[in-house]
Protein backbone atom coordinates (compact mmCIF):
# COMPACT_ATOMS: atom_id res chain seq x y z
CA UNK A 1 0.00 0.00 0.00
CA UNK A 2 1.54 3.20 -1.15
CA UNK A 3 -1.23 5.55 -0.13
CA UNK A 4 -0.48 8.43 2.12
CA UNK A 5 -2.84 9.36 4.89
CA UNK A 6 -3.13 13.10 5.17
CA UNK A 7 -4.39 15.64 7.66
CA UNK A 8 -7.65 15.63 9.58
CA UNK A 9 -10.40 16.81 7.23
CA UNK A 10 -13.44 16.10 9.36
CA UNK A 11 -13.38 16.69 13.06
CA UNK A 12 -16.39 15.98 15.27
CA UNK A 13 -16.27 17.36 18.77
CA UNK A 14 -18.62 16.40 21.62
CA UNK A 15 -21.58 15.55 19.42
CA UNK A 16 -24.88 14.85 21.20
CA UNK A 17 -28.11 14.05 19.38
CA UNK A 18 -31.55 13.51 20.91
CA UNK A 19 -34.93 12.59 19.47
CA UNK A 20 -37.38 13.92 21.99
CA UNK A 21 -36.29 12.22 25.17
CA UNK A 22 -34.28 9.48 23.47
CA UNK A 23 -30.54 9.99 23.39
CA UNK A 24 -29.13 8.67 20.14
CA UNK A 25 -25.58 10.01 20.53
CA UNK A 26 -23.88 11.24 23.66
CA UNK A 27 -20.76 13.37 23.68
CA UNK A 28 -18.95 11.70 20.81
CA UNK A 29 -15.68 13.01 19.40
CA UNK A 30 -13.59 11.56 16.63
CA UNK A 31 -11.91 12.66 13.46
CA UNK A 32 -11.36 11.47 9.92
CA UNK A 33 -8.09 11.94 8.05
CA UNK A 34 -7.73 12.50 4.35
CA UNK A 35 -7.46 9.36 2.23
CA UNK A 36 -8.08 6.93 5.09
CA UNK A 37 -10.72 4.23 5.46
CA UNK A 38 -12.43 4.90 8.74
CA UNK A 39 -14.82 2.27 10.09
CA UNK A 40 -17.61 2.85 12.59
CA UNK A 41 -18.67 -0.35 14.34
CA UNK A 42 -20.91 -1.25 17.22
CA UNK A 43 -23.91 -3.42 18.11
CA UNK A 44 -27.36 -2.73 16.67
CA UNK A 45 -28.81 0.55 17.90
CA UNK A 46 -25.43 1.92 18.88
CA UNK A 47 -26.02 5.08 16.86
CA UNK A 48 -23.86 4.34 13.85
CA UNK A 49 -26.34 5.42 11.18
CA UNK A 50 -27.25 8.48 13.23
CA UNK A 51 -23.57 9.36 13.20
CA UNK A 52 -23.48 9.29 9.39
CA UNK A 53 -26.70 11.29 9.26
CA UNK A 54 -25.07 13.93 11.45
CA UNK A 55 -22.04 14.07 9.17
CA UNK A 56 -24.08 14.73 6.06
CA UNK A 57 -26.66 17.00 7.58
CA UNK A 58 -29.80 14.86 7.65
CA UNK A 59 -29.87 15.11 11.47
CA UNK A 60 -28.87 18.16 13.41
CA UNK A 61 -27.08 17.47 16.69
CA UNK A 62 -28.19 19.55 19.67
CA UNK A 63 -24.65 19.87 20.99
CA UNK A 64 -21.15 19.70 19.65
CA UNK A 65 -19.11 21.17 16.85
CA UNK A 66 -18.21 19.88 13.43
CA UNK A 67 -15.12 21.07 11.58
CA UNK A 68 -14.79 20.42 7.86
CA UNK A 69 -11.33 21.18 6.50
CA UNK A 70 -10.67 23.24 9.58
CA UNK A 71 -13.76 25.46 9.30
CA UNK A 72 -16.66 25.10 11.67
CA UNK A 73 -19.86 24.05 9.97
CA UNK A 74 -22.84 25.97 11.26
CA UNK A 75 -26.14 25.41 9.53
CA UNK A 76 -26.27 22.22 7.55
CA UNK A 77 -28.79 20.84 5.08
CA UNK A 78 -28.41 17.51 3.27
CA UNK A 79 -27.94 19.07 -0.16
CA UNK A 80 -25.12 21.20 1.20
CA UNK A 81 -23.15 18.09 2.10
CA UNK A 82 -23.34 17.07 -1.54
CA UNK A 83 -21.99 20.44 -2.57
CA UNK A 84 -19.07 19.90 -0.20
CA UNK A 85 -18.34 16.66 -2.01
CA UNK A 86 -19.65 14.26 0.61
CA UNK A 87 -21.57 11.36 -0.92
CA UNK A 88 -23.19 8.39 0.79
CA UNK A 89 -25.06 5.15 0.47
CA UNK A 90 -27.84 3.93 2.72
CA UNK A 91 -28.46 0.95 4.95
CA UNK A 92 -31.75 0.13 3.27
CA UNK A 93 -31.09 0.75 -0.38
CA UNK A 94 -32.33 4.19 -1.33
CA UNK A 95 -32.25 4.02 -5.11
CA UNK A 96 -34.83 5.72 -7.29
CA UNK A 97 -36.96 2.70 -8.10
CA UNK A 98 -38.73 4.08 -11.14
CA UNK A 99 -35.53 4.96 -13.01
CA UNK A 100 -32.94 2.97 -14.94
CA UNK A 101 -29.45 2.23 -13.64
CA UNK A 102 -28.04 4.85 -15.99
CA UNK A 103 -30.46 7.54 -14.82
CA UNK A 104 -29.84 6.67 -11.19
CA UNK A 105 -26.13 7.13 -11.59
CA UNK A 106 -26.66 10.28 -13.67
CA UNK A 107 -28.51 11.83 -10.71
CA UNK A 108 -25.27 11.46 -8.78
CA UNK A 109 -23.81 14.18 -10.98
CA UNK A 110 -26.71 16.55 -10.57
CA UNK A 111 -24.81 19.12 -8.51
CA UNK A 112 -22.27 19.40 -11.30
CA UNK A 113 -24.82 20.07 -14.04
CA UNK A 114 -25.49 23.73 -14.55
CA UNK A 115 -28.04 23.94 -17.35
CA UNK A 116 -31.47 25.13 -16.21
CA UNK A 117 -34.87 23.77 -17.11
CA UNK A 118 -35.45 26.21 -19.95
CA UNK A 119 -32.25 25.11 -21.64
CA UNK A 120 -33.39 21.54 -21.13
CA UNK A 121 -36.85 22.19 -22.52
CA UNK A 122 -35.52 23.88 -25.64
CA UNK A 123 -32.51 21.54 -25.75
CA UNK A 124 -30.14 24.33 -26.52
CA UNK A 125 -27.12 25.93 -24.90
CA UNK A 126 -25.42 23.84 -22.28
CA UNK A 127 -28.17 21.22 -22.09
CA UNK A 128 -27.04 18.79 -24.77
CA UNK A 129 -23.32 19.28 -24.24
CA UNK A 130 -23.66 18.67 -20.53
CA UNK A 131 -25.76 15.56 -20.92
CA UNK A 132 -23.10 14.05 -23.15
CA UNK A 133 -20.13 15.05 -21.03
CA UNK A 134 -21.64 13.70 -17.88
CA UNK A 135 -22.81 10.57 -19.63
CA UNK A 136 -19.16 9.90 -20.38
CA UNK A 137 -18.20 10.25 -16.71
CA UNK A 138 -21.08 8.03 -15.71
CA UNK A 139 -19.99 5.40 -18.20
CA UNK A 140 -16.58 5.41 -16.51
CA UNK A 141 -18.27 4.62 -13.21
CA UNK A 142 -20.31 1.91 -14.89
CA UNK A 143 -17.14 0.37 -16.31
CA UNK A 144 -15.40 0.60 -12.96
CA UNK A 145 -18.21 -1.26 -11.20
CA UNK A 146 -18.63 -3.74 -14.05
CA UNK A 147 -22.34 -3.17 -14.55
CA UNK A 148 -22.39 -2.37 -18.28
CA UNK A 149 -24.90 -5.10 -19.04
CA UNK A 150 -27.62 -3.67 -16.79
CA UNK A 151 -27.19 -0.03 -17.81
CA UNK A 152 -30.75 0.41 -19.04
CA UNK A 153 -32.54 -1.90 -16.61
CA UNK A 154 -34.95 -0.29 -14.13
CA UNK A 155 -33.26 -0.68 -10.75
CA UNK A 156 -36.39 -2.16 -9.19
CA UNK A 157 -35.84 -5.31 -11.23
CA UNK A 158 -32.24 -5.92 -10.09
CA UNK A 159 -31.20 -8.37 -7.39
CA UNK A 160 -30.15 -6.99 -4.03
CA UNK A 161 -26.40 -7.25 -4.49
CA UNK A 162 -26.46 -5.36 -7.77
CA UNK A 163 -28.71 -2.69 -6.32
CA UNK A 164 -26.11 -2.08 -3.63
CA UNK A 165 -23.51 -1.76 -6.34
CA UNK A 166 -25.61 0.70 -8.32
CA UNK A 167 -26.08 2.74 -5.18
CA UNK A 168 -22.32 2.87 -4.75
CA UNK A 169 -22.11 3.93 -8.38
CA UNK A 170 -24.52 6.79 -7.79
CA UNK A 171 -22.38 8.00 -4.90
CA UNK A 172 -19.16 7.61 -6.91
CA UNK A 173 -20.58 9.53 -9.86
CA UNK A 174 -20.42 12.65 -7.73
CA UNK A 175 -16.62 12.20 -7.55
CA UNK A 176 -16.79 12.71 -3.80
CA UNK A 177 -13.80 13.58 -1.67
CA UNK A 178 -15.49 11.73 1.19
CA UNK A 179 -17.73 8.71 0.85
CA UNK A 180 -20.03 7.53 3.63
CA UNK A 181 -21.05 3.90 3.31
CA UNK A 182 -23.81 2.53 5.56
CA UNK A 183 -23.40 -1.25 5.71
CA UNK A 184 -22.36 -1.68 2.08
CA UNK A 185 -22.06 -5.44 2.50
CA UNK A 186 -25.12 -6.26 4.59
CA UNK A 187 -27.04 -9.24 3.26
CA UNK A 188 -24.43 -10.20 0.66
CA UNK A 189 -22.89 -13.59 0.06
CA UNK A 190 -19.15 -14.11 0.32
CA UNK A 191 -18.49 -13.53 -3.34
CA UNK A 192 -20.48 -10.33 -3.48
CA UNK A 193 -18.68 -9.14 -0.35
CA UNK A 194 -15.33 -9.77 -1.97
CA UNK A 195 -16.38 -7.75 -4.98
CA UNK A 196 -17.58 -4.91 -2.82
CA UNK A 197 -14.36 -4.90 -0.76
CA UNK A 198 -12.39 -4.72 -3.95
CA UNK A 199 -14.43 -1.76 -5.17
CA UNK A 200 -14.03 0.07 -1.88
CA UNK A 201 -10.29 -0.48 -1.77
CA UNK A 202 -9.96 0.52 -5.43
CA UNK A 203 -11.94 3.70 -4.90
CA UNK A 204 -9.75 4.57 -1.95
CA UNK A 205 -6.59 3.68 -3.80
CA UNK A 206 -7.23 5.01 -7.30
CA UNK A 207 -9.19 8.18 -6.52
CA UNK A 208 -7.83 8.83 -3.05
CA UNK A 209 -11.37 9.08 -1.70
CA UNK A 210 -11.71 9.22 2.07
CA UNK A 211 -14.13 6.54 3.21
CA UNK A 212 -16.21 6.31 6.36
CA UNK A 213 -18.02 3.02 6.58
CA UNK A 214 -20.32 1.15 8.89
CA UNK A 215 -20.01 -2.59 8.72
CA UNK A 216 -20.90 -5.59 10.84
CA UNK A 217 -18.56 -8.12 9.29
CA UNK A 218 -15.55 -7.89 11.63
CA UNK A 219 -13.29 -9.75 9.24
CA UNK A 220 -13.91 -7.14 6.55
CA UNK A 221 -13.59 -4.21 8.94
CA UNK A 222 -10.31 -5.37 10.41
CA UNK A 223 -8.92 -6.12 6.94
CA UNK A 224 -9.70 -2.96 5.05
CA UNK A 225 -9.92 -0.11 7.53
CA UNK A 226 -7.11 2.11 8.71
CA UNK A 227 -8.78 3.18 11.92
CA UNK A 228 -11.90 2.04 13.73
CA UNK A 229 -14.24 3.86 16.09
CA UNK A 230 -16.54 1.76 18.28
CA UNK A 231 -19.94 2.97 19.50
CA UNK A 232 -22.24 1.38 22.06
CA UNK A 233 -25.53 2.85 23.30
CA UNK A 234 -24.64 6.14 21.64
CA UNK A 235 -21.31 6.46 23.42
CA UNK A 236 -17.80 6.03 22.08
CA UNK A 237 -16.06 3.09 23.73
CA UNK A 238 -13.05 2.60 21.51
CA UNK A 239 -11.01 4.33 18.83
CA UNK A 240 -7.79 3.35 17.10
CA UNK A 241 -6.13 1.06 14.58
CA UNK A 242 -7.81 -2.34 14.17
CA UNK A 243 -5.39 -4.22 16.40
CA UNK A 244 -5.83 -1.77 19.25
CA UNK A 245 -9.59 -1.94 19.04
CA UNK A 246 -9.58 -5.71 18.83
CA UNK A 247 -7.90 -5.94 22.22
CA UNK A 248 -9.85 -3.17 23.93
CA UNK A 249 -11.61 -4.51 27.06
CA UNK A 250 -14.77 -2.40 26.65
CA UNK A 251 -15.15 -3.41 23.05
CA UNK A 252 -14.90 -7.09 23.84
CA UNK A 253 -17.44 -6.60 26.61
CA UNK A 254 -19.88 -4.80 24.34
CA UNK A 255 -19.68 -7.44 21.70
CA UNK A 256 -19.50 -10.59 23.77
CA UNK A 257 -21.33 -9.54 26.92
CA UNK A 258 -19.91 -8.83 30.36
CA UNK A 259 -19.41 -12.47 31.27
CA UNK A 260 -16.30 -12.93 29.18
Amino acid at each position, binding site marked *: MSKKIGDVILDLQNISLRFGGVKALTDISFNVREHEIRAIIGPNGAGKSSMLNVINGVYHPQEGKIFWHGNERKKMEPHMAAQQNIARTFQNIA*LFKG*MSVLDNIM*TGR*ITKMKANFIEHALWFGRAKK*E*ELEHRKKVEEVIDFLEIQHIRKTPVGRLPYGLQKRVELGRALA*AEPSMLLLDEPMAGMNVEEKQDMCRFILDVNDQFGTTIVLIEHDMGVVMDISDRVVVLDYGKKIGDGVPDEVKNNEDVIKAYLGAGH
Partner: protein
Amino acid sequence: MLYREAGQFKTSYAADQQLFPIRQDRIGLVLLLAVAFFGIPLFASEYWFSAILIPFLIFALAALGLNILTGYAGQLSLGTAAFMAVGAYAAYNFQLRVEGMPILVSFICAGLTAAGVGILFGLPSLRIKGFYLAVATLAAQFFIVWCLTKFPWLSNNSSSGVISAHNINILGYAFDTPRDKYLLVLAIVALMALAAKNMVRSSTGRAWMAVRDMDVAASVIGIRLMHTKLLAFAVSSFYCGVAGALYAYCYLGSVEPDGFSLDMSFRILFMVIVGGVGSILGSFLGAGFILLLPIFLDITLPFVADLFGLPFSSATVSHIQIMVFGALIMFFLIVEPHGLARLWQIAKEKLRLWPFPH
Protein backbone atom coordinates in the same frame (compact mmCIF):
# COMPACT_ATOMS: atom_id res chain seq x y z
CA MET B 1 -39.87 -8.18 -37.59
CA LEU B 2 -41.13 -4.75 -38.57
CA TYR B 3 -40.29 -3.24 -35.26
CA ARG B 4 -36.78 -4.32 -34.64
CA GLU B 5 -33.73 -2.37 -33.60
CA ALA B 6 -31.26 -5.10 -34.60
CA GLY B 7 -28.58 -3.65 -36.83
CA GLN B 8 -29.04 -0.13 -35.49
CA PHE B 9 -25.76 0.28 -33.64
CA LYS B 10 -25.12 3.28 -31.49
CA THR B 11 -21.55 4.44 -31.82
CA SER B 12 -21.76 7.61 -29.76
CA TYR B 13 -23.52 8.68 -26.60
CA ALA B 14 -25.22 11.35 -28.64
CA ALA B 15 -26.84 8.71 -30.81
CA ASP B 16 -27.87 6.74 -27.77
CA GLN B 17 -29.35 9.75 -26.04
CA GLN B 18 -31.41 11.18 -28.85
CA LEU B 19 -35.15 11.66 -28.42
CA PHE B 20 -36.23 8.45 -30.09
CA PRO B 21 -33.28 6.08 -30.30
CA ILE B 22 -35.13 3.49 -32.38
CA ARG B 23 -35.45 4.28 -36.08
CA GLN B 24 -38.97 2.93 -36.44
CA ASP B 25 -40.16 5.29 -33.69
CA ARG B 26 -38.73 8.24 -35.53
CA ILE B 27 -40.38 7.24 -38.80
CA GLY B 28 -43.65 6.63 -37.01
CA LEU B 29 -43.61 10.00 -35.31
CA VAL B 30 -42.84 11.86 -38.53
CA LEU B 31 -45.70 10.05 -40.25
CA LEU B 32 -48.04 10.83 -37.38
CA LEU B 33 -47.17 14.51 -37.45
CA ALA B 34 -47.53 14.61 -41.21
CA VAL B 35 -50.99 13.10 -40.97
CA ALA B 36 -51.95 15.48 -38.15
CA PHE B 37 -50.73 18.60 -39.93
CA PHE B 38 -51.53 17.79 -43.57
CA GLY B 39 -53.77 14.74 -43.79
CA ILE B 40 -56.45 15.51 -41.24
CA PRO B 41 -57.10 19.11 -42.36
CA LEU B 42 -57.91 17.78 -45.81
CA PHE B 43 -60.53 15.30 -44.74
CA ALA B 44 -61.93 16.03 -41.30
CA SER B 45 -65.33 17.64 -40.94
CA GLU B 46 -66.14 20.67 -38.85
CA TYR B 47 -67.70 18.45 -36.18
CA TRP B 48 -64.50 16.43 -35.89
CA PHE B 49 -62.40 19.54 -35.45
CA SER B 50 -64.51 21.32 -32.89
CA ALA B 51 -66.00 18.40 -30.96
CA ILE B 52 -63.19 15.86 -30.93
CA LEU B 53 -59.78 16.91 -32.20
CA ILE B 54 -59.47 20.32 -30.56
CA PRO B 55 -60.66 19.23 -27.10
CA PHE B 56 -58.50 16.11 -27.42
CA LEU B 57 -55.36 18.16 -27.95
CA ILE B 58 -56.22 20.67 -25.24
CA PHE B 59 -56.98 18.02 -22.64
CA ALA B 60 -53.87 16.11 -23.65
CA LEU B 61 -51.90 19.26 -22.90
CA ALA B 62 -53.57 19.65 -19.51
CA ALA B 63 -52.99 15.96 -18.76
CA LEU B 64 -49.37 16.44 -19.75
CA GLY B 65 -49.15 19.29 -17.27
CA LEU B 66 -50.63 17.19 -14.49
CA ASN B 67 -48.42 14.27 -15.47
CA ILE B 68 -45.32 16.40 -15.01
CA LEU B 69 -46.42 17.22 -11.49
CA THR B 70 -47.94 13.91 -10.45
CA GLY B 71 -46.33 11.34 -12.72
CA TYR B 72 -42.79 12.71 -12.76
CA ALA B 73 -42.45 14.74 -9.59
CA GLY B 74 -44.84 12.62 -7.53
CA GLN B 75 -46.98 15.47 -6.15
CA LEU B 76 -50.67 14.60 -6.48
CA SER B 77 -52.85 17.54 -7.48
CA LEU B 78 -56.63 17.70 -7.54
CA GLY B 79 -56.76 21.30 -8.72
CA THR B 80 -55.78 21.03 -12.38
CA ALA B 81 -58.94 22.65 -13.70
CA ALA B 82 -58.39 25.68 -11.48
CA PHE B 83 -54.96 26.27 -12.99
CA MET B 84 -56.55 26.02 -16.41
CA ALA B 85 -59.04 28.64 -15.28
CA VAL B 86 -56.19 30.92 -14.25
CA GLY B 87 -54.73 30.53 -17.74
CA ALA B 88 -58.03 31.25 -19.47
CA TYR B 89 -58.76 34.36 -17.43
CA ALA B 90 -55.20 35.60 -17.58
CA ALA B 91 -55.14 35.34 -21.38
CA TYR B 92 -58.46 37.19 -21.51
CA ASN B 93 -57.21 40.00 -19.31
CA PHE B 94 -53.93 40.39 -21.16
CA GLN B 95 -55.81 40.64 -24.44
CA LEU B 96 -58.34 43.02 -22.96
CA ARG B 97 -56.04 45.33 -21.05
CA VAL B 98 -52.75 45.38 -22.91
CA GLU B 99 -53.17 47.25 -26.14
CA GLY B 100 -51.88 45.34 -29.13
CA MET B 101 -50.47 42.34 -27.31
CA PRO B 102 -50.06 39.49 -29.80
CA ILE B 103 -52.31 36.57 -28.93
CA LEU B 104 -49.42 34.12 -28.67
CA VAL B 105 -47.70 36.38 -26.17
CA SER B 106 -50.94 36.47 -24.20
CA PHE B 107 -50.96 32.68 -24.13
CA ILE B 108 -47.41 32.62 -22.83
CA CYS B 109 -48.25 35.25 -20.22
CA ALA B 110 -51.32 33.19 -19.28
CA GLY B 111 -49.03 30.22 -18.73
CA LEU B 112 -46.66 32.31 -16.66
CA THR B 113 -49.50 33.66 -14.53
CA ALA B 114 -50.71 30.12 -13.91
CA ALA B 115 -47.14 29.14 -13.06
CA GLY B 116 -47.00 31.90 -10.46
CA VAL B 117 -50.27 30.78 -8.90
CA GLY B 118 -49.01 27.20 -9.08
CA ILE B 119 -45.90 28.08 -7.11
CA LEU B 120 -48.06 29.79 -4.50
CA PHE B 121 -50.22 26.70 -4.02
CA GLY B 122 -47.18 24.46 -4.28
CA LEU B 123 -45.62 26.03 -1.22
CA PRO B 124 -47.36 23.64 1.19
CA SER B 125 -45.63 20.75 -0.63
CA LEU B 126 -42.46 21.77 1.14
CA ARG B 127 -43.92 20.66 4.44
CA ILE B 128 -46.59 18.13 3.59
CA LYS B 129 -46.84 15.08 1.38
CA GLY B 130 -49.25 12.61 -0.11
CA PHE B 131 -52.91 12.92 0.83
CA TYR B 132 -52.33 16.04 2.84
CA LEU B 133 -50.96 17.71 -0.25
CA ALA B 134 -53.78 16.36 -2.40
CA VAL B 135 -56.27 17.92 -0.03
CA ALA B 136 -54.28 21.14 -0.02
CA THR B 137 -54.58 21.36 -3.81
CA LEU B 138 -58.35 21.23 -3.35
CA ALA B 139 -57.92 24.58 -1.64
CA ALA B 140 -56.56 25.89 -4.93
CA GLN B 141 -59.49 24.39 -6.79
CA PHE B 142 -62.15 26.06 -4.65
CA PHE B 143 -60.37 29.29 -3.90
CA ILE B 144 -59.41 30.13 -7.47
CA VAL B 145 -62.85 29.41 -8.90
CA TRP B 146 -64.40 31.51 -6.14
CA CYS B 147 -62.05 34.42 -6.82
CA LEU B 148 -62.83 34.37 -10.53
CA THR B 149 -66.54 34.43 -9.76
CA LYS B 150 -66.44 37.12 -7.12
CA PHE B 151 -63.89 39.67 -8.31
CA PRO B 152 -65.72 41.44 -11.15
CA TRP B 153 -62.52 43.03 -12.44
CA LEU B 154 -61.19 39.65 -13.52
CA SER B 155 -64.06 39.07 -15.92
CA ASN B 156 -64.46 42.72 -16.90
CA ASN B 157 -67.65 43.04 -14.81
CA SER B 158 -69.60 40.44 -16.71
CA SER B 159 -72.38 38.70 -14.84
CA SER B 160 -71.32 35.51 -12.96
CA GLY B 161 -67.84 35.80 -14.41
CA VAL B 162 -68.51 34.71 -17.98
CA ILE B 163 -65.83 35.77 -20.44
CA SER B 164 -65.91 35.67 -24.23
CA ALA B 165 -62.72 35.04 -26.12
CA HIS B 166 -61.34 37.62 -28.53
CA ASN B 167 -60.74 36.82 -32.15
CA ILE B 168 -57.45 35.19 -32.90
CA ASN B 169 -55.26 37.03 -35.33
CA ILE B 170 -51.63 36.14 -35.86
CA LEU B 171 -49.51 38.27 -38.22
CA GLY B 172 -52.59 39.43 -40.04
CA TYR B 173 -54.08 36.00 -40.51
CA ALA B 174 -57.41 35.39 -38.77
CA PHE B 175 -57.81 31.96 -37.21
CA ASP B 176 -61.58 31.75 -37.26
CA THR B 177 -62.53 28.39 -38.77
CA PRO B 178 -62.35 25.23 -36.67
CA ARG B 179 -59.65 23.93 -39.01
CA ASP B 180 -57.44 26.98 -38.43
CA LYS B 181 -57.89 26.70 -34.70
CA TYR B 182 -57.09 23.02 -34.84
CA LEU B 183 -53.82 23.72 -36.61
CA LEU B 184 -52.90 26.42 -34.13
CA VAL B 185 -53.64 24.17 -31.15
CA LEU B 186 -51.80 21.29 -32.78
CA ALA B 187 -48.68 23.36 -33.34
CA ILE B 188 -48.65 24.65 -29.76
CA VAL B 189 -49.33 21.23 -28.24
CA ALA B 190 -46.69 19.52 -30.40
CA LEU B 191 -44.04 22.06 -29.41
CA MET B 192 -44.91 21.86 -25.74
CA ALA B 193 -44.92 18.07 -25.79
CA LEU B 194 -41.46 18.15 -27.33
CA ALA B 195 -40.28 20.55 -24.64
CA ALA B 196 -41.74 18.29 -21.96
CA LYS B 197 -40.00 15.28 -23.43
CA ASN B 198 -36.72 17.21 -23.40
CA MET B 199 -37.17 18.20 -19.80
CA VAL B 200 -37.95 14.73 -18.53
CA ARG B 201 -35.00 13.15 -20.30
CA SER B 202 -32.49 15.61 -18.84
CA SER B 203 -31.37 16.39 -15.34
CA THR B 204 -34.49 18.47 -14.67
CA GLY B 205 -36.60 15.36 -15.15
CA ARG B 206 -34.21 13.16 -13.22
CA ALA B 207 -34.41 15.54 -10.27
CA TRP B 208 -38.22 15.33 -10.37
CA MET B 209 -38.22 11.56 -10.50
CA ALA B 210 -35.63 11.35 -7.74
CA VAL B 211 -37.84 13.47 -5.49
CA ARG B 212 -40.80 11.29 -6.43
CA ASP B 213 -39.04 8.00 -5.73
CA MET B 214 -37.17 8.87 -2.54
CA ASP B 215 -36.91 12.42 -1.34
CA VAL B 216 -34.43 11.93 1.48
CA ALA B 217 -31.93 10.22 -0.80
CA ALA B 218 -32.51 12.93 -3.40
CA SER B 219 -31.59 15.66 -0.97
CA VAL B 220 -28.48 13.79 0.17
CA ILE B 221 -27.33 13.64 -3.44
CA GLY B 222 -27.58 17.39 -3.60
CA ILE B 223 -31.01 17.95 -5.09
CA ARG B 224 -32.68 20.97 -3.53
CA LEU B 225 -36.13 19.69 -2.65
CA MET B 226 -37.79 23.08 -2.46
CA HIS B 227 -36.45 24.23 -5.79
CA THR B 228 -37.30 20.94 -7.51
CA LYS B 229 -40.86 20.68 -6.19
CA LEU B 230 -41.71 24.29 -6.88
CA LEU B 231 -40.27 24.00 -10.37
CA ALA B 232 -42.55 21.01 -10.98
CA PHE B 233 -45.52 23.04 -9.76
CA ALA B 234 -44.54 25.97 -11.94
CA VAL B 235 -43.93 24.00 -15.13
CA SER B 236 -47.04 21.88 -14.59
CA SER B 237 -49.19 24.96 -14.00
CA PHE B 238 -47.68 26.64 -17.04
CA TYR B 239 -48.85 23.76 -19.18
CA CYS B 240 -52.28 23.75 -17.56
CA GLY B 241 -52.49 27.53 -17.92
CA VAL B 242 -51.78 27.41 -21.64
CA ALA B 243 -54.26 24.56 -21.95
CA GLY B 244 -56.83 26.72 -20.19
CA ALA B 245 -56.20 29.67 -22.50
CA LEU B 246 -56.61 27.41 -25.53
CA TYR B 247 -59.73 25.93 -23.95
CA ALA B 248 -61.29 29.38 -23.86
CA TYR B 249 -59.92 30.77 -27.12
CA CYS B 250 -59.86 27.80 -29.46
CA TYR B 251 -62.47 25.42 -28.06
CA LEU B 252 -65.43 26.96 -26.25
CA GLY B 253 -65.13 30.62 -27.12
CA SER B 254 -66.78 31.66 -23.89
CA VAL B 255 -66.22 30.19 -20.45
CA GLU B 256 -67.35 30.72 -16.87
CA PRO B 257 -65.41 29.95 -13.69
CA ASP B 258 -67.78 27.17 -12.63
CA GLY B 259 -66.95 25.34 -15.83
CA PHE B 260 -63.49 24.63 -14.40
CA SER B 261 -64.95 22.34 -11.78
CA LEU B 262 -63.54 19.72 -9.47
CA ASP B 263 -65.14 17.19 -11.79
CA MET B 264 -62.97 18.44 -14.63
CA SER B 265 -59.88 18.16 -12.43
CA PHE B 266 -60.79 14.56 -11.72
CA ARG B 267 -61.28 13.80 -15.39
CA ILE B 268 -57.82 15.09 -16.18
CA LEU B 269 -56.44 12.98 -13.34
CA PHE B 270 -58.23 9.99 -14.87
CA MET B 271 -56.58 10.72 -18.20
CA VAL B 272 -53.22 10.53 -16.48
CA ILE B 273 -54.04 7.30 -14.66
CA VAL B 274 -55.55 5.57 -17.66
CA GLY B 275 -52.95 6.89 -20.07
CA GLY B 276 -49.91 6.23 -17.95
CA VAL B 277 -48.49 7.92 -14.88
CA GLY B 278 -45.08 9.31 -15.77
CA SER B 279 -45.43 9.09 -19.54
CA ILE B 280 -45.68 11.86 -22.14
CA LEU B 281 -47.28 9.53 -24.66
CA GLY B 282 -49.66 8.33 -21.97
CA SER B 283 -51.07 11.83 -21.51
CA PHE B 284 -52.23 11.76 -25.13
CA LEU B 285 -53.54 8.22 -25.02
CA GLY B 286 -55.39 8.91 -21.78
CA ALA B 287 -56.95 12.11 -23.07
CA GLY B 288 -58.15 10.34 -26.19
CA PHE B 289 -59.57 7.46 -24.23
CA ILE B 290 -61.41 9.51 -21.61
CA LEU B 291 -62.86 11.87 -24.23
CA LEU B 292 -63.96 9.17 -26.63
CA LEU B 293 -65.41 6.84 -24.03
CA PRO B 294 -68.59 8.87 -23.34
CA ILE B 295 -69.16 9.30 -27.08
CA PHE B 296 -68.72 5.59 -27.55
CA LEU B 297 -71.14 4.80 -24.72
CA ASP B 298 -73.67 7.33 -26.02
CA ILE B 299 -73.77 5.48 -29.29
CA THR B 300 -73.60 1.90 -28.11
CA LEU B 301 -75.71 1.90 -24.93
CA PRO B 302 -79.09 2.66 -26.54
CA PHE B 303 -78.26 0.07 -29.14
CA VAL B 304 -77.55 -2.56 -26.50
CA ALA B 305 -80.72 -1.55 -24.66
CA ASP B 306 -82.75 -2.01 -27.82
CA LEU B 307 -81.25 -5.40 -28.29
CA PHE B 308 -82.54 -6.56 -24.91
CA GLY B 309 -85.70 -4.50 -25.03
CA LEU B 310 -84.75 -2.49 -21.93
CA PRO B 311 -86.05 1.03 -21.48
CA PHE B 312 -82.99 3.29 -21.30
CA SER B 313 -83.41 6.93 -20.43
CA SER B 314 -80.70 9.46 -21.13
CA ALA B 315 -80.24 9.82 -17.38
CA THR B 316 -79.42 6.14 -17.16
CA VAL B 317 -76.88 6.53 -19.91
CA SER B 318 -75.14 9.31 -18.03
CA HIS B 319 -75.21 7.24 -14.82
CA ILE B 320 -73.67 4.32 -16.62
CA GLN B 321 -71.02 6.63 -18.04
CA ILE B 322 -70.01 7.78 -14.58
CA MET B 323 -69.98 4.20 -13.33
CA VAL B 324 -67.83 3.05 -16.21
CA PHE B 325 -65.38 5.87 -15.53
CA GLY B 326 -65.07 4.82 -11.92
CA ALA B 327 -64.79 1.15 -12.71
CA LEU B 328 -62.15 1.81 -15.36
CA ILE B 329 -59.98 3.77 -12.96
CA MET B 330 -60.07 0.94 -10.45
CA PHE B 331 -59.48 -1.57 -13.22
CA PHE B 332 -56.40 0.23 -14.53
CA LEU B 333 -54.95 0.79 -11.09
CA ILE B 334 -55.31 -2.90 -10.33
CA VAL B 335 -54.44 -4.48 -13.66
CA GLU B 336 -52.11 -2.02 -15.36
CA PRO B 337 -50.97 0.79 -13.07
CA HIS B 338 -48.79 2.19 -15.84
CA GLY B 339 -51.77 2.57 -18.11
CA LEU B 340 -52.17 2.52 -21.85
CA ALA B 341 -48.62 3.72 -22.40
CA ARG B 342 -47.34 0.51 -20.83
CA LEU B 343 -49.71 -1.58 -22.96
CA TRP B 344 -48.32 0.20 -26.00
CA GLN B 345 -44.81 -0.67 -24.89
CA ILE B 346 -45.73 -4.32 -24.42
CA ALA B 347 -47.28 -4.33 -27.87
CA LYS B 348 -44.05 -2.93 -29.29
CA GLU B 349 -42.03 -5.64 -27.61
CA LYS B 350 -44.33 -8.24 -29.11
CA LEU B 351 -43.90 -6.58 -32.49
CA ARG B 352 -40.15 -7.05 -32.35
CA LEU B 353 -40.66 -10.75 -32.81
CA TRP B 354 -43.87 -10.85 -34.77
CA PRO B 355 -44.68 -12.81 -36.89
CA PHE B 356 -42.06 -15.29 -35.67
CA PRO B 357 -42.69 -15.64 -31.96
CA HIS B 358 -39.42 -17.41 -31.13
